[in-house]
């Protein structure tokens, strides 16, 4: 129970931080914001990597697929965000 409350506290605080910080992103950057958060949600890759020490075909297949999907998310998300942000120029 203690463990859950700690985790939940972190969750609630992080949501507040997220709202405060991300509210200030201006509308012209909303597409890069979305693709950047795509990349950040690829953080699940950490969860998948932590499972890569287990043996057994099913776990290995699931873990492999999870790492692939999350890595596509990370690399694709950061890559495309970078491409977009480099195009924004002041007149």
């Amino acid at each position, binding site marked *: 129970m203690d463990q859950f409350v700690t985790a939940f506290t972190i969750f609630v605080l992080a949501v507040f931080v997220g709202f405060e910080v991300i509210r200030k992103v201006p*509308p012209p950057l909303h597409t890069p914001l979305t693709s950047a958060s795509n990349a950040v*949600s690829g953080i699940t890759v950490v969860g998948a990597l932590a499972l890569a*020490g287990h043996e057994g075909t099913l776990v290995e297949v699931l873990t*492999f697929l999870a*790492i692939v999907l*999350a890595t596509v998310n990370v690399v694709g998300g950061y890559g495309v965000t970078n491409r977009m942000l480099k195009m924004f120029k002041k007149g």
Partner: protein
Amino acid sequence: MSSGVVNLAYLIAAVCFIVAFKMMSSPRSAARGNTISSFGMLLAIVITVLQTKSLNVTLVASALLVGTAIGAWLAKSTSMTGMPQMVALLNGFGGGASLLVAGASLHAGDASGLQALIATGLSGIIGAVTFSGSLVAYGKLEEWKFLDGLRPKGHQAIVATLFASSIFAMVPMIVSPPGEMWFWIACAIASFLGVLLVVAIGGADMPVVICLLNSYSGLAAASTGFVLNNSMLIIAGSLVGASGLILTQIMCKAMNRSMANVILGAMDASTAAKADDVYGGKVKSASAEELAMLLADAQTIVIVPGYGLAVSQGQHALKDLASKLTARGAKVTYAIHPVAGRMPGHMNVLLAEADIPYDQVKEMDDINPEFKETDVAIVIGANDIVNPIAREPKGNPIAGMPILDVDQARTVIVLKRSLSPGFAGIPNPLFALPNTLMFYADGKKGLSDLATALKDA
């Protein structure tokens, strides 16, 4: 490696993500922020690889390699026009990954205790909805025809039933673990739910759906954090969840609709006036040459891009026309409605791609007072976002939606292929106003014809 060092590294990664989102508050710092965020991600991955016991190196290396190759290829090959599809696909992958991690940790016996089991269930359900919903969103954005108009009778009741049964199916897994079969049954039901939720949503609401799925992919990652009791995953996931939710709210506000109405309600165009009554004999059209003469004398010009510009890939032709107008001494600005295009901010990216400086691009609230002083407003492939009947308090599907006040400009040029209605399915009285001239053409072709005609004007 001691768990202290690992957790410290995770904290640094989480701080990198927050700092990066903060740096997105300005286009000047945003690109550096993205680099910082990716550094945080790299750090998190490296630390996890180093601390995982008896790591299967071949599996990890090959999976990272395959994922990196696909991700890099996607990032490089996606066109700016296709950005909504790309984001939809990535949302889906994120959800899918969370679902797989939950399934794998359940099978490996890592998920034990009430917290971890409930979180595993949630990870599975949210992940599955995100995965299947995003794939359908991708298909709809790619305009796969078989996905059109699929809205079963009793849609809301079916959605509610599926949602309840996916939650219910998780109960046996939580009560008597591992119960893997129940986990996968719940995920299958949730996948079906995701398909049903997105398939019924209209084209105009696509920006909302993309934001919402983005938010879900973050929540799925956060619940994976609860499964593994990993604070950094929880923080990163909730940041994404918050980001998606904020954008969803902004989009809903810009359409004057509630989130529930977007997700569960269909737009009803039947109450609107008939096209013949609105347009009958009142619509005037003009040729590129006539319009070029008009533009040649204009001092202030506001350009309103819509989805039609994106599909015709006309952003470079637009820049070309705008340069010619500026060279003749006109002041050219761009006005962007919050829901123009198919994802928030999409138009800004397209204009940026065509080297249009971002300080010439104005948001709705800033530009609206200026239309009264505008000589010519050029609407390119936009419809509902400039429809004056939205100003009526009720009686039509877009009533109360804030719009760009282009009808207040001295002359309005509407570049559009035909008089066909926009996403809302209703006629637009703007096209029949005395100060409006229709220019029937494909976005890109029309813009380059105007530019050519302007040379001779």
